[in-house]
């Protein structure tokens, strides 16, 4: 009996110590975000830069999938959202869950595939045409395609491309749903000599590390493959936190653009993202189109 009480008391030390320590006047802003964006390190950089001007503000990034990031926001468990899935964002914008949308960066998806390119898509300027060729080759048993299958921003974009091509690969033998993050999906595609839709930063990183010897970029660039990153304020967030979150949004769209312009150059040889400045109208238009897909 004594032992049970002793264990209980010992077990309560850390939780209580944490609770006491946490009431120290810091403002913690929870921001849900997509893992693929978080792992680039850009958001940690943002938290760091913002803290320099606002020492008592800590931005807590919760890296999950795009779908989960928005769902958590709808449940009131985030103050901000950083995502890249316009058609999903649209649903939550329309429901009034997220407001003050700010496009803060963009880059491009690419179609990667085996070097021998059995579907013959290398150098295509249209991703949709590429997908059509992959479908035909797949049906002939000459090509495989690996999908994220996790309702991530990348996965949603892949659906849109299939829909634009007027094709439905679901249920076919050559269409593999990984149900995994971008990195693991790329490794599966590499193992199976399959085609895959990927964001450029994850692909470049894995390629540079020599993990994808069988894959190369076959289709890149173009409006169909643009990847737009947006930040939002969650409407259920209120009080001082909402004020700070608005300041963060403002910062992301202005001063932080200078950092986005160069971020990643050291590691990858070229920046991972493009800043929005000068392209606001074009990006807003593209976002609008993508969100209606």
């Amino acid at each position, binding site marked *: 009996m004594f*032992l*049970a009480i002793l*264990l209980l008391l010992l*077990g309560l030390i850390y939780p209580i110590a*944490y609770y006491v320590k946490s009431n120290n006047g810091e403002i913690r802003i929870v921001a849900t975000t997509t893992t693929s964006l978080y792992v680039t390190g850009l958001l940690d950089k943002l938290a760091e830069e913002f803290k320099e001007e606002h020492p008592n503000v800590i931005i807590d990034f*919760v890296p999950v999938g795009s779908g989960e990031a928005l769902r958590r926001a709808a*449940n*009131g468990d985030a103050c901000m959202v950083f995502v890249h899935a316009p058609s999903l964002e649209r649903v939550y914008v329309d429901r009034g869950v997220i407001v003050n949308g700010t496009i803060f960066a963009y880059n491009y998806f690419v179609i990667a595939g085996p070097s021998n390119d059995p579907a013959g898509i290398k150098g295509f300027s249209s991703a949709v045409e590429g997908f059509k060729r992959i479908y035909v080759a797949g049906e002939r048993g000459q090509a495989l395609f690996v999908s994220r299958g996790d309702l991530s921003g990348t996965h949603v974009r892949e659906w849109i491309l299939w829909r634009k091509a007027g094709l439905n690969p679901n249920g076919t033998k050559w269409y593999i749903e990984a149900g995994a993050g971008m*990195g693991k999906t790329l490794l599966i595609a590499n193992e199976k000599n399959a085609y895959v839709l990927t964001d450029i930063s994850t692909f470049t990183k894995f390629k540079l590390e020599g993990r994808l010897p069988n894959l190369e970029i076959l289709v890149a660039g173009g409006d169909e493959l643009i990847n737009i990153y947006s930040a939002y304020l969650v409407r259920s967030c209120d009080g001082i936190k909402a004020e700070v979150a608005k300041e963060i949004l403002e910062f992301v769209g202005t001063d932080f653009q200078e950092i986005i312009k160069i971020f990643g150059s050291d590691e990858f040889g070229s920046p991972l993202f493009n800043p929005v400045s000068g392209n606001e109208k074009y990006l807003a238009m593209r976002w609008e189109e993508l969100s209606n897909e």
Partner: protein
Amino acid sequence: MVFMWGEVLEITSRSVMISLSATLLAASWSILASYALTRSKTASKYVMPVLQSLVGIPTVLIGLLLYTILSRSGPLGFLSLLYTPNAIILGESILITPLLITYIYGSLKASLDTYGELAYVLGGDKLGIASLVIRESTPQLFSSIIIAFSRAMGELGIALMVGGNIKGLTRVMTTAIALEVSKGEFELAIALGAILVLITISVAVIVNLIKKWWER
């Protein structure tokens, strides 16, 4: 992106403190619950099989259920526990409770069969018998604590769902490993995994030393 050793140390100690707290808390109520179960034949007959089957429950399921409860839109949202180490402690202590009760119940039952009647005949009161039986099964209790701690250290689903893998706040060994895998830093992920295993082994050794000292 260089992973700082200071950060590794911070994540490691956070992991140990969270899992240790969860294990101690779960052990305290599991001892009482197990003793209560040994006193009631019908309860143990129906409760024990259920608890035994819950030992392997997916951690992500507990994490998800706990998330819906602790979410701001959930019944306990007002506690602001979500995204704190305490939420992970709560989840892990729930996770390992069936495991602890299953083990502790077994050893209490055994020592109750051995000493219970004797103590009763010798005129022990209720509390006295309970204390004796629990003390006699302490060695097994230590072993079950090692197993429970190892399970708490190694779980990922709860830490991800209710902790959120927030840098400097709720990032623990398993969520850090998962994140490094997403980054493609497999070597680093394996190194972190090795540290995790090393720690659970060291804790097992330490607990065994305490057990030896106790039995002396």
